[in-house]
């Protein structure tokens, strides 16, 4: 996967350890005016989302556009979308770590931070969807006066365990990776930031004993996060595949969802990295080669997703099941044809452009493509959830769902919520891993040119 670079050329381009610390610490300086303006915009959008949520809390779920039989709409679509976004973070930080893929070091922190905040956003949606968010704790098994327990045979409950485990483990993984970096930043910081880093570096000094335990712990966390990431979106897919709704009840769902999740997540990493490397001036660390590798990941997962789309239609035809066939015919030519064709164009067709090296190495082209993939992946979940539910078995029970302003506002608010955390993190903690970027550069040796 890693792009081959000539050793001499590599050596000349390599920064020293000191330069790495200096350049990455520089990203944490006083925020610019543009940063505050962006933060203000995000807060305004978030306020709109919060207002819509409070409106729903006050007046009940009737203000959402739910129309029987479509009782899973934008909220569940957005939940699956954000869980999906989270996936590439763990792929880049854990799976590529186990494969000893050196190129991941510059981009993995951004991907990992994105993961944590995306799961944090996703986790809100089942609560918003059930309406009475103040009873959210009913989802968890806890001793209660009614002496009853939750139903562990329900995939919805598997989801509670999978998503909360994912949030916990990915947060722990992020914090563990951050500790040596925060210690490096601590030495350069002054004022309140120094206090912050002194506390959050947990007394890290990089002693031989600390590294001895740290390296092992990090390896095992990566080894645990790898099957976890595959399980989480499989479990999310079973929310649908375990039901007998035409268009949902298929064994292909778990791998199809996992590939789609990584696909959308990589697209979001590209969307975030392009402005980030410019604003933080870290072009030296996040290079075109990194983008090309991300583009290859996009191409691979995009092709798996495109294959899954084709196989879904094939299975509907080959099964001989009239309801399944009708469901898929409705997807392509029914009321929601525009959503289906948006999904197919953005996810199934556009990524084939990445076969061209010129596009893989063009950052503006990748940025635009990543926006299309983000859009397409949201629509994929919309098509799977809403379109399937709107067109089940009985023609007299079919219906049409149009999201209300409350749902659109909460969807917009979720993006603001995600970006709010991302922006706050980006100015206070290193978005490029100082330690891991150094790690791939050999330590200077006596007799060689000093770095």
């Amino acid at each position, binding site marked *: 996967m890693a792009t081959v670079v000539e050793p001499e050329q590599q050596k000349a381009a390599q920064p*020293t*350890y*000191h330069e790495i*610390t200096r350049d990455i610490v520089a990203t944490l300086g006083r925020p610019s005016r543009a940063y505050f303006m962006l933060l203000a915009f995000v807060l305004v959008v978030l306020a709109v989302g919060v207002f819509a949520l409070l409106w729903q809390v006050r007046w009940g779920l009737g203000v959402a556009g739910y129309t029987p039989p479509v009782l899973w709409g934008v909220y569940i679509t957005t939940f699956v979308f954000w869980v999906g976004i989270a996936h590439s973070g763990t792929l880049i930080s854990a799976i590529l770590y186990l494969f000893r893929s050196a190129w991941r070091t510059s981009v993995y922190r951004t991907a990992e931070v994105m993961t944590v905040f995306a799961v944090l956003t996703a986790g809100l949606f089942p609560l918003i969807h059930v309406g009475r968010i103040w009873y959210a704790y009913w989802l968890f*098994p806890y001793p209660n006066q009614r*002496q*009853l*327990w*939750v*139903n*562990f*045979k329900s995939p919805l*409950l*598997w989801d509670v*365990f*999978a998503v909360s*485990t994912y949030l*916990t*483990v990915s947060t*722990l*993984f992020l914090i*563990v990776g951050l500790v*040596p970096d925060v*210690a*490096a930043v*601590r*030495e*350069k910081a002054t004022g309140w930031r120094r206090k912050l880093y002194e506390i959050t570096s947990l007394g*890290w*000094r*990089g*002693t*031989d*004993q*600390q*590294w*001895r*335990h*740290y*390296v*092992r*712990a990090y390896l*095992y*966390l990566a080894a*645990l*996060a790898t*099957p*976890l990431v595959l*399980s989480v979106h499989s*479990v999310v897919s079973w929310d649908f595949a375990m039901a007998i709704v035409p268009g949902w009840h298929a064994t292909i769902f778990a791998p199809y969802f996992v590939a789609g999740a990584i696909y959308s997540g990589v697209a979001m990493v590209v969307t975030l990295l392009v402005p980030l490397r410019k604003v933080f001036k870290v072009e030296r660390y996040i290079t075109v080669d990194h983008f090309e590798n991300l583009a290859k990941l996009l191409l691979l997962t995009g092709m798996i997703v495109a294959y899954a789309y084709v196989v879904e239609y094939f299975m509907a035809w080959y099964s001989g099941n009239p309801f399944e066939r009708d469901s898929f015919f409705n997807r392509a030519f029914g009321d929601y044809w525009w959503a289906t064709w948006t999904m197919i164009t953005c996810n199934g067709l556009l990524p084939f452009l990445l076969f061209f090296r010129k596009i893989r190495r063009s950052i503006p082209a990748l940025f635009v493509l990543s926006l299309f993939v983000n859009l397409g992946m949201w629509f994929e979940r919309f098509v799977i959830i809403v379109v399937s539910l709107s067109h089940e078995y009985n023609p007299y029970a079919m219906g049409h769902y149009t999201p209300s302003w409350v749902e659109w506002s909460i969807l917009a608010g979720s993006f603001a919520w995600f970006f709010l955390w991302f922006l706050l993190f980006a100015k206070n903690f290193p978005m490029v891993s100082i*330690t891991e970027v*150094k*790690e791939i550069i050999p*330590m*200077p*040796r*006596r007799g060689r040119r*000093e770095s």
Partner: protein
Amino acid sequence: MSGHPGGILAAYQHVDSAAEAIRRLKSQGYNDLIVYTPVPNAEIAQAVGHKTSSVRLWTLFGGLLGCASGFALTLWMSYDWPLVVGGKPVGSTVPYVVIAFELMILFGAGATILGLLFNSWRTRQRGAYDGRFSDDQIGIFVPCPVERRPAVEEMLRSSGAVEVRVET
């Protein structure tokens, strides 16, 4: 009061010089030295000669405990509040694999963190430190009594230290 034992603190720029100094110090019986590096390094780890960390056992036991807890939790709660559906078992292990798997990962990761914290605390090293060791230099702190300091200082300098200073 510095809060650490007195000794010599040396800074190195070259990893092989530092590894050589560690080997020489260890051969002379200085086994409680502290080595600071900005990144983990195999050559230094080999010179220091630690055994593999026991964090792995924490991960193993955490994972096993999580898996067992997952099955125990689901089966006990199913029989405590039976949802009787005709012909189907009240406690059905197949769907509970999902819960057991997730708890295995959760407990395994939690135990790994606890293992990391506990082991780091148990093997904590007290010695002088310099901020450059988290930037680009390798540090070696050798706790030693006053009478041995000139010899250690000389040895560290001769092995390529860029800076050597006495810490009291």
